[in-house]
């Protein structure tokens, strides 16, 4: 009755630090990792708490196969600046979310709303569908919009907006 299936030990967390691993930028724009005697030509970086604690607990994973976890970074802020920046470029792509800095207009039509705003990535117009799915309220002042295509936009601090902008936004959040 015994089936022979070997499963590797997956419930131990290995912590990766700048000391026990070597990170290197690859030609192709990725990051390679040397850790515990293994070389990974490309590693993916996923945040455990992308919304609430973006810099702590970052899972470093193989980029192919079963995407096994190589290890976890406990706190990115404890890394040397250059390595942290290297890792951050990878993370920024995965969690690409422009921050809205100014709201030009919000126009309703047929149950959708078209926002025209300035973001830290440039000015942008996007459409969200009405209903609660499109708007995630992370706190009283922090909001994430998901547009009809799946793009995300963030309002990092609602109080930084003018009263007029807040009034406009108030209809959707």
């Amino acid at each position, binding site marked *: 009755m015994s089936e022979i299936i070997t499963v590797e030990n997956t*419930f131990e967390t290995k912590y990766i630090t700048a000391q026990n691993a070597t990170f290197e930028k690859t030609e192709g724009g*990725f990051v390679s990792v040397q850790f515990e005697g293994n070389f990974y030509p490309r590693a993916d970086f996923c945040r*455990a708490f992308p*919304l609430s604690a973006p810099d702590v607990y970052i899972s470093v994973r193989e*980029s192919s196969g079963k995407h096994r976890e190589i290890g976890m970074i406990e706190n990115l802020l404890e890394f040397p600046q250059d390595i942290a920046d290297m890792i951050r470029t990878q993370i920024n792509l995965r969690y690409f979310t422009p921050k809205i800095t100014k709201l030009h207009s919000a126009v309703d039509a047929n149950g959708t709303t078209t926002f025209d705003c300035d973001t830290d990535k440039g*000015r*942008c*117009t996007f459409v969200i569908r009405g209903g609660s799915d499109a708007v995630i309220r992370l706190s009283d002042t922090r909001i994430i919009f998901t547009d009809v295509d799946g*793009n995300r936009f963030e309002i990092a601090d609602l109080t930084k907006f003018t009263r007029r902008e807040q009034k406009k936004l108030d209809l959707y959040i």
Partner: protein
Amino acid sequence: MKKTEDLTSKKENPYAALFTHWGIEAKQVKEVCPTDMDLSLNYRRGYVVLTEEGLYVFSAPQQLKRLDMTDKKPQPLDDNSEYVFYSTDSITRLSVESQVACVSLVAQIDGAERILAVTSECNAAKMRHLARLVTLEEEEHNGNFHGKPDRPMHSGRGGFGRPPMDAPKGKGAGFKSRMGQFARLMGFFKPYSIGVVAVVFCFLATAVIGLISPYLNGKVLYGQVLEKNIGTSELEKAAGALLLTILAMLVVKIANSFFSSAHSLIVAKFVPRVIRDIKNKVFDAMSRLSISFYQSRETGTLMTRVLDDADQVTGMFIDNLPALMVDFVTVIVATAIMFALNPVLALAAIILLPISSILSYFIMPRLWMAYGRRHRAARKLNSGVNDNIVGARVVRAFGRQDDEKGRFASSNRLVRDAEVAIVDTDSKITAIFSAARELANMVVFATGACMIMTHTFGMDYALLITFTGYVGMLSGPIDTISMFMRQWVNCMNSAQRIFEIIDARPDVEESENPTHLENIKGEVELKRVCFAYDKGNPVLTDVSFKVKAGQMLGIVGRSGAGKSTLLNLISRLYDVDEGQVLIDGVDIRDVAMKDLRGLVAMVSQETYIFMGTVAENIAYARPDATPQQIIKAAKAASAHDFIMKLPDGYDTLIGTSGRQLSGGERQRLSIARAILTNPKILMLDEATAAVDTETEINIQQALSELIKGRTTISVAHRLSTLRDADSLVVIEEGKVVERGTHRQLIEKKGEYYRLANIQHQALKKRGLE
């Protein structure tokens, strides 16, 4: 590289002609995908152009002034845009990788992976198409891992209007008990007695002021001012009197508005508080109640109770009851005034009122019945819609849409019929009342006119006008009084439901002097335990066993044998009928509830996900857990990997309105939840039933770590799950039929051997296939 696919669509690609400036002819172009970001993630226009020769990645010289995601028209590139060229031969693989909210184009070039372009989700589909043209069988790299977030689905649960109130039963039924309830309900208003008094005062003031109006209009204006002064020479005096009267009328009106506004203000101030108090009280009571209470009642009914009944009761007390008091006062005072002014005319005025009351008394029950019918029909309609939304998958899988439409139409028709009946009866009642009112008016006018003409009973115009004013005031209150009965019944039904919960005694109660357990070893013993959910239908009879501290006991048996019930008893969700459950020799009925809950954790086949993030769900029983502890628990439960696959990781919102998880995922979360509580006694009720074999083995391994140093009681269908158990108990029809270790039981060739054999055969058969 695989041979590229020919473009099947004959249609001209609208983008194809944009690149002639760089020497790429339109007919060379196989596919174009616009991009709107550069590799440093700023908005910038660009294109990825696929030709037979290779891949051109264009990028505009400067950032976009404005990215309009609504505009899908091809935009020409600046002439000084530059491109990077990758020849077809150098690319061994081209794939589109989904990020959380954008996509990247990654190529395997000369053996190394290279990121070529990034674009927003708007162009994601186009980019995937382009990549597919290059490699026919698209291996969407990371396909699973960077999985796109499913849009959170609206689950169909809840939100379908409240289940209708019970149809009002006959009048006066259980009137006495209702008075008792009424008195108890008053208790809720006690802390706000000043507010209640103020409301009643405002109502009464409004009523009294209302009563003055007809007197001013008739007796004073006509009788004192106009009649006496018409034709007299003292114009000044007349004008003065008129002004005075008008002023008085104005003051009355203003006072009237003042009191009614004051009333609204006071009500707005304290009614929400009373509602909150009642809701809190009901919710507290519900949390106190044992699990059996929940299993014998529908969730929907419970929700109605907490949320709607409080509103119903409070509405009754704040609106209907004071209004009724005012109406009573109005009717009595108005009648008294009328009799004082002119008894004969008063008699004529009220003689018809009893008739309308009697008639409505007979018609009213029909109206109630019609309301009841509508409630039942609406309930049927609601549950039909609910079924179709919650069970949308089943309906479609079996192709039952048309039948469902028919079912919906028929219950919809019932609602319509009931609605028509209500309107029908309602208009009859209205007709009777208005007829009575008009008739009364006419009788008063006719009688009054006769009296004036014959100069009898001291009648004059002024008196007649005053009188008609009072007659008008009578009809409204009489309507409300007759309607009041129905609201009263509704309110008392609500009150009854509220008190049923507040008064319900939990089946499982904490002992008065609970023992606080310290330094627990975790030994569990059942001594001759008998238990039945319903009396006379025993689930467990005379069950005894003992698990030594730190050991694992496996419970085996067919479904319905009473395995899960055993666990319910050990965690004291129910109390035993006979016998004892002992932890370290102490009867659990003597153990403080709080100690017990911290001591025992259960992972069951039922998993419940609360609304909140993944992290919050894992830390449900220990909100103070650190992220590190949460991740550790998730890892131990084999949940970490799937959580990291979610775009928002541990921050992903799950539960009713959030992302939907699969059965196995939910199961693993609830295991993580149990692991985090670090219990001394762990109970696993088919903990791995909903996961695949590989995950099960993962979890098994995790559990085998977890159960070290803990007493574990595990119920499982698959006997392989229980291989590591120190001892096994086989239960059949609520009795222990065999006990021993795996080896002993196999050698014994009894029930366990039989079960093991059946499963072995089944596995073998599948293996042969």
